[in-house]
């Protein structure tokens, strides 16, 4: 079974500063994808960034970047130049291929509440 662990229930950061959210996962699969989703109070789950496990290069998306350590099964999210609109719950998620039958199941972590202060 795949599991995703986010060990930081809550984080806070000052506007314009940098913050890193942690995520570890456990799987026996070699082919998988990792995601960070953001969920503001509106409930809408929004994709922040995606990483393919076979790619060694860390994904980046504007102010958002990841540190993907495959051997350590770690996938942290760095948010640079934090903005008030980044305040949300952030979820790390994982999807794997096990003979073609596990694709479709996103496994989510417990989430980290990020608050950006002015």
């Amino acid at each position: 079974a795949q599991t995703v662990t986010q060990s930081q229930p809550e984080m806070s950061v000052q506007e314009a500063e940098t913050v890193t959210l942690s995520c570890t996962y456990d799987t026996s699969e070699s082919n998988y994808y990792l995601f960070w989703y953001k969920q503001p109070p509106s409930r809408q789950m929004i994709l922040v960034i995606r990483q393919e496990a076979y790619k060694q290069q860390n994904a980046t998306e504007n102010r958002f970047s990841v540190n993907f350590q495959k051997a350590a099964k770690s996938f942290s999210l760095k948010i640079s130049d934090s903005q008030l609109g980044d305040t949300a719950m952030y979820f790390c998620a994982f999807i794997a291929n096990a003979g073609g039958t596990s694709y479709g199941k996103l496994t989510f972590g417990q989430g980290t509440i990020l608050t950006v202060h002015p």
Partner: protein
Amino acid sequence: GAGVSQTPSNKVTEKGKYVELRCDPISGHTALYWYRQSLGQGPEFLIYFQGTGAADDSGLPNDRFFAVRPEGSVSTLKIQRTERGDSAVYLCASSSSITDTQYFGPGTRLTVL
């Protein structure tokens, strides 16, 4: 439409009643997923469709839960004999294929009194 839509946005019902939750995926997306999110938790997988057929329904908690997607587009999640423990946000997502990114709707908040 531009994104995944779900109706109703909120549903309040009484214990024992039947409810239907609707999901309208992004046009052209063949894969559709249902998740359930309890307060303060991450979403949990319920079922997903590839086209009209349920490819994996292993997350449905019991036989009171059922979902259909008769024409390969809109999907309905049906819950019979609702219980207070069914109260949660039900999220729907769609993707262009099962290996592509899933895009989520705003969810339906179900409250069972």
